[in-house]
């Protein structure tokens, strides 16, 4: 479960993400499956045309939590390599906001771990996405409450019953 090649690389970056950088040095002769996910900026959200996005994060906490999630998912799914990086700042359409890489002996656990780690990072890490629309308005994307002792506990990070709260404060 040790990933020597990049143990000190930041998980939160304000520069464009590189899949090559994430893959290089992570090769393992005992792994027959490599699964990769990139979350890219879409030109639409729930019917509204999107011009660009701005991501912000509590960088120190987000970095620490992503590392913890990587370790948790690697152990749970038995995958030797599980890595995520997330970009912050202003992103244009088509740019990658998140990259996740899993290497595993077989593809079943690679797919399962990849989905789980992406879900966990999206639902648990202090990162916020503000969408700027082509009409000049903007809104924060509805998020997941990460307070352990808010009104209800956060139930299931990977499932469909996590809590969403609408913070779509529209600004012209």
């Amino acid at each position, binding site marked *: 479960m040790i990933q020597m090649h990049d143990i000190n690389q930041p998980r939160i970056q304000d520069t464009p993400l590189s899949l090559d950088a994430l893959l290089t040095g992570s090769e393992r002769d005992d792994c027959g499956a490599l699964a990769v996910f990139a979350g890219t900026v879409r030109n639409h959200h729930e019917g509204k045309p999107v011009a660009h996005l701005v991501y912000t994060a*509590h960088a120190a906490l987000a970095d620490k939590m992503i590392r913890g999630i990587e370790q948790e998912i690697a152990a749970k799914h038995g995958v030797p390599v599980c890595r995520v990086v*997330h970009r912050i700042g202003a992103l244009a359409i088509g740019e990658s906001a*998140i990259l996740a890489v899993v290497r595993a002996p077989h593809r079943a656990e690679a797919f399962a771990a990849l989905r789980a780690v992406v879900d966990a990072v999206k639902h648990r890490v202090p990162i916020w996405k503000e969408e700027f629309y082509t009409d000049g308005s903007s809104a924060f994307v509805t998020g*997941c409450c990460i307070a*352990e*002792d*808010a009104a209800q506990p956060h139930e299931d990070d990977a499932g469909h019953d996590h809590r969403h709260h609408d913070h779509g404060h529209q600004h012209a």
Partner: protein
Amino acid sequence: MAGSRIEVRVQCFGPARRLAGDEWLSVQLGEPATVADALAALAQRGDDFAALLKQCAVALGDEIVRRTYPLKAGDEIALLPPVAGG
């Protein structure tokens, strides 16, 4: 000692920063103070902010702390509204 007042600085993230209109706020709290006391003081800023506070996690350094966590003079806490990475 009980009865004296402390200042706690509050860093706002995401929608909390937009609602606050600023990255940093500060609140004066009577001792002994907890995170819950800080949130109660911040809720005075208005109904929208008060509603958002209920959904916020609170961090001290790189730890998320519960509502019951004690605060001391000079602490800086972070308001973490519901998150949406990816």
